[in-house]
């Protein structure tokens, strides 16, 4: 199988993960579920980054660094997301995004 075909398949999978993640992040009401949507999209980024390293420039570490950064973004997003959920919950007892609509400026 040609390398390009494998690359395209993998990237399509990554695109699907990003699409599903976007759908989840936009459609869900629960803040935790929204975070899961973002995580899923970032999962697609991880996959694309790994494929990019393998097929384009395995002699350089740049694509690996991209994956590391994506992982860090996930960790930060998760930590801050949970902290924000707790803070919002503590003050207003909301865990649904619609209920927090008044946060809009």
């Amino acid at each position, binding site marked *: 199988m040609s390398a390009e075909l494998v690359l395209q398949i*993998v990237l399509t999978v990554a695109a699907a*993960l990003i699409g599903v993640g976007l759908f989840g992040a936009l459609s869900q009401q629960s803040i*935790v579920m929204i975070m899961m949507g973002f995580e899923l999209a970032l*999962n697609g980024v991880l996959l694309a980054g790994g494929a990019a390293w393998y097929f384009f420039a395995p002699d350089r570490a740049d694509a*690996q660094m991209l994956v590391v950064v994506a992982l860090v973004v996930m960790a930060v997003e998760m930590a801050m997301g949970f902290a924000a959920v707790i803070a919002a919950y503590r003050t207003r007892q909301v865990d649904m995004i619609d209920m927090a609509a008044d946060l809009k400026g």
Partner: protein
Amino acid sequence: MLTDLSAWAVTAVVVLGALSVAAGIAVFVVDSMARATFALLASFLAVTGVLIAFDLDYLAFVTALMMTIEMAIMAVFMIMFMMNPAGLMPMTMVHNARGSALVGAGAFVALTVGIWTIDWPVGEVTRPADSTRQLGEAIMGSHMLAMLVIGVGLFATIISGTLLATARGRYDRFGADLRAARPNDPVPGGLPR
């Protein structure tokens, strides 16, 4: 140019890729919070498998490690904060499902069209003997600045996350003049002080 991946590896990549997407869809389909969380974990572990096939051992294992811990904690959050933890009473909590689906599908279609029309510059490449060593040397060498920024960012996250989440500060724990010998905690900690 043919891929360096063996037929087995290509099969594994395709199967695991399909699995990761299926599990990703399942996240938003299943009723139970626990199942949603662990479906997401399954998606991550499938991607981990693909990364292993791409020789990115270290990144793959770190992904599995981090994401499992994250999902385990997420499951607890789900149960603490949300209704319907076990799916005893199926319900949906979505808004604007149609618009979201359109956006998601649109993103997928746009990306896919790009992926299959672009002529990817796949050529001869030289593979490193050890991808882990390559990453380590990059982090400690050419990409050290990025890593420093990441480190500071993570540290800031730890502090700000804790600040956001906790309701009690040191004045609550040690008194207004911060002179209390033992912190006034609801549950005493393990340090003898």
